């Protein structure tokens, strides 16, 4: 059980220099909303990123095989399998 980190804005929105050190490599990272635009910005946090598929498609984001595209049912599942959830 680890933490699920949720981001909804591009990375520039966040206090990156304090944030990057709070995310463990075994934590799950989920990008929703405008955070989906540039997935690469968040690669430093975790090799595997979860993307809310619906939000990514609406933004014309090409889905990459190395990322995990999830539905709302899976979003609910991610929060349940995590110890806790942080929406940054």
């Amino acid at each position, binding site marked *: 059980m680890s933490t699920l980190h949720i981001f909804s804005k591009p990375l520039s929105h966040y206090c990156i220099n304090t944030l990057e050190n709070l995310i463990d490599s075994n934590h799950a990272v989920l990008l929703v*909303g*405008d955070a989906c635009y540039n997935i690469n910005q968040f690669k430093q946090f975790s090799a595997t990123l979860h993307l809310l598929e619906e*939000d990514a498609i609406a933004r014309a984001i090409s889905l990459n095989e190395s990322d995990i595209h999830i*539905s*709302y049912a899976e979003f*609910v599942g991610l929060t*349940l399998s995590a110890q806790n*959830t942080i929406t940054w």
Partner: protein
Amino acid sequence: MAQFVLSLHTAPTDHDTTQRLIKFAEACIAGGHTISAIFLYQAGIFHASNHLELASDELPVKQLWQELSAKEIPLLLCVTAAEKRGLDTQDTGVFTVAGLAEFAMLASEADKWVQFK
């Protein structure tokens, strides 16, 4: 089956966050889970305004809340956050005015608390 509380921190002008919270809530219910409260805090309290006027091609914010309310999900708003922001707490539509303590109780009894912002 799990018990959730959800909190919404963005104003009704943030249509993107609004639709996401609502779809998440629907997915919780569809998955057989319980939502003990959706709580409006910070700028989120403006969702309880009865003066939202949106064009017909905009996200139908008011209607979406009515649909969630019909599913018997408790919709609460923080009275302190509302008063200092100038919301009319006498007229909050499908939302019920609550204290922060009431929400904190629900949050500490819930399995999961998910914030939307």
